[in-house]
């Protein structure tokens, strides 16, 4: 599993979760800070994660813990999955930032995995998916309530381990530092001098920073900054009519040329093409590994799972 990469996941501001339905072709080994719940609406899919290989079918659910390296693949038929990504700190004991939880939830697992929690969590997730795609605004109070109930369900029903760290512990120190770096980038990407400022802020040399990031997330400082800038550019391209100059400047690319080059390299199309397509290029299977799926079918499947009497 040497080709793993770090993925930065952006959550919708209003709810502490990133929710989407997708049909999976293949996602290479990757990890993120977010916990990821996958509810299979239509199977099968193959999931490879630290607890082993699982083939999940329709109605199965699995949780990928924060920072676990994992891979998701389509089997032979088409699939539809609901993804709920929760930021890692929603489970953090508010009094104690020095611990994190790893949960055991996999409806195909045995031993500690087999528990009554599965059905309740499954229904709750289906409900969240249904609410998200059918009812009201995306930040509706109901959806918020459902997401927080899901968090409570996890703490109350699902077996978990608590990993406790000391402030003196280097491993924990590393992830704390990483979070600091990433949030600094998220807050300052528009600044053209961000690279040097970040080194000053973290009190690290360029070499140390390079080694630290490579070792911990397999990316360079430049790659993270670019990724962040491109994500912002995508939103601006899709939702505003600002010109390219403005966007390149606003996102901290410095020049149009750099903006074009970076964007094309990462997304596969030019910013202009992206704008003309209404941002649809994002869902291009060649790029993200997501396939097209039928929305109506998904909603029906969600409804069936919500009403499951099991």
């Amino acid at each position, binding site marked *: 599993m040497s080709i793993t990469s770090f993925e930065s996941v952006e959550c919708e501001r209003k709810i502490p979760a990133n929710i989407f339905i997708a049909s999976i072709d293949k996602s290479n080994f990757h990890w993120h800070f977010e916990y990821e719940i996958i509810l299979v609406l239509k199977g099968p899919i193959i999931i490879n994660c630290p607890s082993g290989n699982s083939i999940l079918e329709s109605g199965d659910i699995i949780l990928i813990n924060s920072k676990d390296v994992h891979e998701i693949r389509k089997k032979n038929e088409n699939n539809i999955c609901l993804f709920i990504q929760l930021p890692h700190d929603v489970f953090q004991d508010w009094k104690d930032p*020095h611990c994190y939880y790893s949960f055991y939830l996999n409806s195909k697992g045995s*031993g500690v995995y087999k528990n009554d929690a599965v059905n309740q969590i499954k229904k709750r997730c289906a409900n969240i998916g249904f609410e998200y795609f059918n009812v009201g605004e995306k930040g509706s109070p109901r959806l918020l309530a459902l997401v927080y109930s899901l968090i409570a369900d996890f703490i109350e029903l699902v*077996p978990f381990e*608590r*990993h*406790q*760290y000391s402030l003196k512990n*280097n491993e924990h120190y590393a992830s704390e530092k990483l979070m600091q770096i990433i949030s600094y980038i998220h807050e300052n990407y528009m600044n053209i001098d961000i690279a040097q400022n970040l080194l000053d802020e973290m009190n690290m040399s360029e070499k140390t920073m390079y080694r630290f990031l490579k070792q911990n997330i397999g990316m360079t400082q430049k790659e993270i900054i670019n990724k962040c800038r491109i994500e912002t550019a995508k939103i601006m391209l899709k939702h505003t009519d600002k010109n390219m100059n403005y966007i390149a400047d606003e996102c901290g690319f410095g020049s149009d040329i750099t903006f074009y080059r970076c964007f094309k390299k990462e997304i596969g199309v030019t910013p202009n093409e992206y704008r003309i397509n209404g941002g649809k290029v994002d869902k291009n299977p060649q790029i993200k590994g997501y396939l097209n799926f039928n929305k109506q079918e998904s909603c029906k499947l969600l409804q069936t799972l919500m009403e499951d009497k099991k």
Partner: protein
Amino acid sequence: MKVSKKYRLGFTEKAKTIVNKLSLEEKVSLMSGSISLEEMVNSMGEEGQHYNYIPYSAGGIPEKNIDPMLFCDGPRGVVCGTGKSTAFPVSMLRGASFDTELEEKIGRAIAREIRAYKGNTFAGVCINLPYNPGWGRSQETYGEDSFHLGAMGSALVKGVQENGVIACIKHYAFNQMEISRFKVSVDCDKRTEREVFLSHFKDCIDTGAAAVMSSYNLYKGTHCGHHDYLLNKVLKDEWDFDGFVMSDFVWGVRDTVEAANGGQDMEMCCTQFFGEKLVKAVKDGLVKEEKINEAALRIIRTIMAFKETFKDEISEDVIGCKEHIALALESARKGITLLKNNETILPLDKNKLSKVLVLGKLAVIENTGDHGSSWVYPPYVVTPLKGLAEHSGQCEVIHYDGKDLGHACKLAKEADAVVFVVGYDHNDEGEFISEDQVDSYTGAAGGDRLSLELHEDEIELLNKVGPVNRKSVAVLIGGNTILMEKWKDSVSAILMAYYPGMEGGTALGEIIFGEVNPSGKLPYVLPSNEKDLPQVDWNTTKQHYDYYHGYAKLEKEGITPSLPYGFGLSYTSFSISNPEFTKNETVISATCDVKNTGDRAGDEVVQLYIGFGQSKIDRPKKSLKGFTRVSLTPGEQKRISISCPIEKLSWFNSETGKMEIESIDYDVFIGTSSDEKDLLCGKINL
């Protein structure tokens, strides 16, 4: 101690002058608490408030310059405030340290915090003797032995009073059953009363304790709060106590006339039977005014002596200050007791381990003891899990509650060591008020332990998962004896942590990973079988106490305990040699060499026992009569000496009604536990 009894008596004339100028109503007003039960219960409903959030006041007449008594509860710190006070380990752990100097320092710290809260009385010197260790509040006391209770209680009294706060010893007397505390009448013979249950109270009075709290229960059919014999005859006449008596809260006084004539000086913490009713009783001739004068004199004199001696203001900064918290940590380090360490698997070497698994729900709970009147509210509590993580270096620390045994086994196999944290919390033991007691003033659950075993699920967890990993350690949390026979072979090491206070997790982490060498000793015998101990009916109106309990009972009956009184292991080893036994007019002394024969520094508690094998009457085989703590570096040897006043060897002769010394050969033992194989023996003739 500056404010000694003699010193306090120096204020008699001044106090009398004041008493003489007071009306009957004014004098009676000094004799009871000033807040209503309703006020107390209501304030407890307020956000962030609780029982004794501020000192509870009694008496006081500002215009006559008479200060009120300002009550602060304990013993594991000062109950006042929220998120402020230092939460020391419970008294049982402090008892296990056998360290009177440290207890005195804790007393001084507590007194400083009380004065910062503007209180003047510490009602947290609990010295009741757990006749059966199931007593739910035994965490508030120091252990099962009367001599040890007297010594530890006296140290706390000294410390508290040295820093200007009145020390109130409690609960006088025979209070060692919780569920039945309001209704049980205790009975025992005279020797049991004097030699076993009152002797440590006398020790603390002799040390100079300035206040006494009477208990709820009855003794020989009379409420202890009204007890003419206990309060007037024994405490005030025989022992010549100069301070004042206060009742336990709300149900400690049941009758105006009987209480006032019985020697009760102060009804706490509300005025129910004193106040107007007492004024009327005096006017009706049922209570003599001299009784009132005497109570007023005792109250005024005591408060005045302290007030006039300690005039400096103490800043609130001392509450929960660094020095006090350091003391709480030192206490936990010295009291936590190592009971088993097969193949010296402890300490764990953090440099050789990469993953430690912690099992049991108590590992993540801020568990400082019961939720009754001794509940202290510190700024933080280090849980066992946090403490372990803080001292594990690069070694990963993972916690699982242990509900799924198969999963726990799997995790235990993958880990390099396993630490179980098992035992009790406030739901299992502690101050108790039954549901029908609607006036519940602390809202506590708890009660007595009907079984001395761990919970069934914990026993199963230890037996199933313990054998999976050779490096398995059980950490026990609880206020008194926890039986180990059903599971002790399943783990390699056992640590008794009691309720180790706000820094308890830190001390556990330090001990398990070897930064600190454990040095506590069991302040009670650990039997193999519950039936080896005296049995009590926890829910009853009548209970007889026999002469024998604890190690004295097991020794007398020839029963080998699982672990003896005074037992505790260390990461190093000690040897004792060259004993010498001497006497003079007043004391018996035992002297010996103690050597650290291991490879790291450590503390040993050397104990002195006197044996009564030659006695012509029925006496214990031996009793603890002295102890001292000694610190030794590897290879170091010190000659230590322990003395015991000869009067401590006395027995109560019911025919003469006096404590007497037998003229016989006494066995004298000095060593490292109450087990004879750990003791060197000699003889002294008196």
